[in-house]
């Protein structure tokens, strides 16, 4: 059995074993052990991964459903982009677990089992190289997340859970149709119905452009809902607000990335021509999302909702980067996925810590808390600044590269995408700083807040690794960008190989300048 | 001659069928239906299906309708006030039935040239007790056995549903 299977199976087995554990503490430590083990194995996978090699590595291939005319297989493999996301997943699960150790008191073993199930599903999504397998993991994630929101969530948890489920299901079923359609088209060409990503990558290019477009949009719709792209985002604030902290962390940290990951892997990978044709539409939506999410975030009075809308903005950058199809854009998108996972994950987790103490999400209930909990305020500020996109921290690298990617993109025929998206940096400062001010600064308006305790050692332990990574990516991003480089460059080259010439807003002769 | 007989029988069958569905009370309806069955048996005869004509009378008119009448009497239904529903839904239904009739009839008329013009040569032979019986007990013995299953089911069912007291 390969290492990737192991990564999926260990959490699955853990989830199964949790059914026999009734004691809450035992369940927690057991889950921590399992997720740590998974994390270690993912690190091993990361070190086995060869940055320089092309194509998918650590492949595993077993026939699953196969006959004369059908070939569906259990096919795993990673490239640089997916291995980073796998690492992010395993890392965030551990961190999230430590960070929310005492938040949940109700039916702990159940939550732990669902969490591990979720982890297995997420790793599966990022490792699948067979569309059918991918779809199964994709949908598998719905169930645990649905329960996590529905059982451990806030007041409107049922509404949020059902909305999350149906919304996502709607998108993914459309994708299912597309997967089947693609397989059927493939079978017309090669005689075998297949969902093998690598085979389909070559086959899909010979499809008629109409079909490519339909398929492209079916995939795009599904991913756009998951991302979420404006105007399909309204499930997100509800889900985030109602989910328990650990749910929000995983939802923001990893689940949303499944959408953008899908866009890279399937939309760009399978339908290069359709991608180029439709890139501008998706980018327009992404840019609207960037601005819209930020503006709406300004209006929020609920911390979690605000962070949720900030996710809409950040994910917009990722989509913009992806559909710029340039090296800069794709690399930026990949690193931005990691960044968003870290910083928004941390914001949710840290707010969860405050919520555990105070049990309210309304910003107005806080104010001046920095005076009482200086350590908390410091860490929260770092997470906030990372989210604002301050150079030197991780958020900037991603946003910057995606904006530059959009500037340089030969498929987007205008600079306005980048210029409008760059206004996102202004608005991010507006809503986040304002939130921070109302939340943390100023005089202590609520006397009962004086009794709030500062972070405990456990909580500090859970956030410090996140901060380390934020600074690491901010200052030495190439550690991670090198990993995804070959994947992103190959994809960009293959896409832009079929792209038309760029026409700019401003006619510029581009001299070759080499300066030493 | 045979033609005239057919038309008379057909007219009788249709007329008695109409009587059947329009009688307010159940017993006249049932009697009209018996009449229809008899007319139909006559029509079978014009088709030279003697065997079926005989059992049509025996089984339908004789057995089934007697059973029905028996139940009607048992339940004392002859005096019931309700008979016919007439609301727009029913009217719509009846209209649709007429449409179905028109559709089928028009298709039949449209394509009648393609039908065989007369009874097949073996018709007389096919309709006899002997040939039907041979067929039933030789080639169709299997479904014949299966038919017994249907009857068993109905017997068990009748017992289950209508037996006065269960253990």
């Amino acid at each position, binding site marked *: 059995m390969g290492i990737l299977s192991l990564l999926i199976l260990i959490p699955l087995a853990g989830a199964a074993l949790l059914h026999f554990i009734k004691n809450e503490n035992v369940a927690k430590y057991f889950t921590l052990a399992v997720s740590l083990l998974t994390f270690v194995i993912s690190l091993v996978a990361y070190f086995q991964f060869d940055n320089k090699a092309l194509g998918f590595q650590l492949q595993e291939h077993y026939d*699953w*459903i*196969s*006959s004369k005319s*059908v070939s569906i297989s259990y096919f795993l493999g990673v490239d640089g982009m997916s291995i980073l996301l796998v690492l992010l997943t395993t890392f965030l699960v551990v961190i999230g677990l430590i960070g929310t150790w005492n938040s949940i008191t109700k039916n702990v073993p159940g939550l732990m089992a669902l969490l591990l199930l979720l982890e297995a599903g997420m790793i599966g999504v990022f490792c699948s190289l067979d569309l*059918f397998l991918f779809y*199964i993991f994709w*949908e*598998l994630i*719905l*169930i645990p997340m*649905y*329960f996590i929101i*529905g*059982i451990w969530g806030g007041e409107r*948890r*049922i509404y949020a*859970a*059902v909305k999350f*489920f*149906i919304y996502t*299901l*709607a998108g993914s*079923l*459309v994708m*299912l*149709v597309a997967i*089947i*359609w693609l397989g*059927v088209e493939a*079978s017309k060409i090669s005689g075998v*119905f297949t969902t093998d990503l690598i085979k389909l990558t070559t086959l899909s290019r010979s499809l008629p452009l109409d079909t490519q477009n*339909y398929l492209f949009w079916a995939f795009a719709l599904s991913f756009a809902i998951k991302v979420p792209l404006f105007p399909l985002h309204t499930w997100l604030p509800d889900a985030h607000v109602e989910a328990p902290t650990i749910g929000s962390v995983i939802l923001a940290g990893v689940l949303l990335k499944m959408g953008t990951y899908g866009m890279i892997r399937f939309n760009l990978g399978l339908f290069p021509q359709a991608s180029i044709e439709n890139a501008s539409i998706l980018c327009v939506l992404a840019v609207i999302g960037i601005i819209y999410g930020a503006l709406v975030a300004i209006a929020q009075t609920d911390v979690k909702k605000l962070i949720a809308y900030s996710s809409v903005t950040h994910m917009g950058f990722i989509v913009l980067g992806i559909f710029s199809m340039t090296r800069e854009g794709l690399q930026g998108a990949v690193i931005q996925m990691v960044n968003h996972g870290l910083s928004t994950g941390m914001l949710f987790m840290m707010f969860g810590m405050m919520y555990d103490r105070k049990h309210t999400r309304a910003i107005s209930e806080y104010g001046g808390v920095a005076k009482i909990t200086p350590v908390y305020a410091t860490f929260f500020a770092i997470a906030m600044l990372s989210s604002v996109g301050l150079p030197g921290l991780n958020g900037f690298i991603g946003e910057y590269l995606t904006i530059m990617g959009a500037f340089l993109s030969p498929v987007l025929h205008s600079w306005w995408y980048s210029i409008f998206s760059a206004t996102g940096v202004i608005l991010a400062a507006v809503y986040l700083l304002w939130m921070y001010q109302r939340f943390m600064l100023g005089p202590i308006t609520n006397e009962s807040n004086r009794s709030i305790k500062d972070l405990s050692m456990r909580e500090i332990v859970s956030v410090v690794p996140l901060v380390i990574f934020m600074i690491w990516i901010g200052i030495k991003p190439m550690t991670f960008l090198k990993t995804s480089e070959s994947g992103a460059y190959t994809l960009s080259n293959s896409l832009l190989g079929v792209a038309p010439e760029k026409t700019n807003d401003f006619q510029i002769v581009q001299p070759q300048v080499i300066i030493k | 001659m045979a033609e005239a007989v057919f038309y008379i029988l057909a007219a009788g069958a249709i007329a008695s069928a109409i009587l059947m569905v329009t009688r307010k009370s159940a017993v006249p309806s049932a009697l009209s239906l018996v009449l229809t069955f008899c007319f139909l048996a006559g029509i079978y005869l014009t088709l030279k299906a003697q065997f079926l004509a005989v059992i049509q009378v025996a089984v339908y008119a004789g057995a089934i309708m007697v059973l029905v009448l028996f139940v009607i009497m048992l339940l004392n239904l002859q005096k019931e006030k309700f008979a016919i529903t007439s609301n727009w839904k029913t009217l719509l239904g009846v209209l649709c039935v007429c449409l179905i009739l028109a*559709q*089928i009839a028009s*298709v*039949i008329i*449209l*394509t009648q040239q*393609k*039908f065989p013009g007369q009874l097949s040569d073996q018709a007389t032979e096919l309709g006899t007790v002997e040939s039907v019986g041979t067929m039933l007990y030789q*080639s*169709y*013995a*299997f*479904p014949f056995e*299966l*038919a017994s*299953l*249907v009857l*068993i*089911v*109905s017997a*068990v*069912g009748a*017992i*289950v*549903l209508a037996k006065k007291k*269960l*253990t």
Partner: protein
Amino acid sequence: MSKTDLIAALPLIILATTGFVILIWDAFSKKPSRAPLAITIIGSIAVIAAAVSNMSSTPVAAFGGLFFSNTFTNFFTIIFAASVILSSLLAEKYLFGKEIIVGGYCALTVFAACGMIMLASGANLIVTFLGLETMSISFYVLAGLFRTEESSNESSLKYFLLGAFATGFFLYGIALVYGCTGTMNLSDIRGIMLAGAKPVASYSSLLYLIGILFIIVGLSFKVAAFPFHQWAPDVYEGAPTIVSGFMSTAGKTAAFAAFLVLFNYALIPNPHPQGGAEKIQIVLAVLAALSMLYGNIVAIAQTKIKRMLAYSSIAHAGYLLIGIASLNSNGITGVTIYSAVYLLMQIGAFGIVGMLEKENANALDLDDYAGLAKRRPWLALILAVLMFSLAGIPPFAGFFGKYYLFLAAIDAGMVWLAIVGVISSIIASYFYLRVIVLMYFRDAKHDEAVSEKISAPLVAVAFVTVALLVLGLYPSLLLHSIGYFFQ
């Protein structure tokens, strides 16, 4: 009547014999006992054994072309026998305490299963008709099994009247097809259709199409497809719960088996010879689409779980009709897989409803399921799996079945039908989720946890759940046993 004929019919013979044994036992036994259930289960296992052994032998049309025995028919025979076993297990608790004849119940289920086998294996329209009637008449009675309850009576009468009405059309259809082809032998009809020349051309393709249409009406009625579905909610609600489970699964499956044999094999064999085939395809597709949409939409507003499941069964008839409408081999595979899977899901769901109904004094409202996860965690878990599977969420088998059906539709060039399927699935997820919401997210009226005792019904539903998971993860199990039917 040769030896091969008898071997081919062996499952049917065993099953019928089982029925008679039950009747005889019942006639001589004084007090109610579980023996008929045991006999039923033993007999059904024997049937499965016979069918499994028949599966691998050479396909034959026994009794001079009246009765098929091949992979396809034996596969369905196994499904029917399995459903008899499952419903017997579920009946173990359910039937006792009510004034009914257990023997009668067992015999009728067994006879109904005989009818189903005839329906699926009939190589001649006469046998098909007899099978349909054997099954239907058994169902009429079964629906009215609780004869002292008005709802059961009503269910029975409604089913009977409408069923007989639909039978009239079905029979008319047979007559017209017979008139146009001059034969009732399916292989002969197939030959004529494939030749595409003689009788149909010389007679009337229109009349033939109307005949087909009437057959569609008759079978659609049995599978409860829109607009011939209206009996289903009333009947399933009024009938005893386990009977509803049996009728809505095995009965439907049998009708779909007949659909496959009649349409894909005989009436409109592939490749399509006539222009009329496309029309029939569209008719079937439209029925499928309407059934899916109607069933799922109306299910949303239901407050009674049995009724909700009934509407869901209408929708599932729609999904299955996609496979029929596709008229291709993927459709056959899809229908076969999905009817097997659907049978497991639906019978399991009705089974749990029956268990809870029995324990909690007719708790049949959806609201009675509030907080079930606390009271009965295992039952809730099983029901949740069933709901997810019904909703078509992987990795449960319901998903895989749907997958194949959509595959068939797209393969047949009907992407729109797949999309309608998708839309209705989205709608459906709402009410399936609602059951889960109730069980897991809402608080119970009374909260005490009940420890689960192993009982026959529990074994049945647990088996169903495990099977759904296994088949979902490894659908090849089903696919390989199906093989290629009509090649």
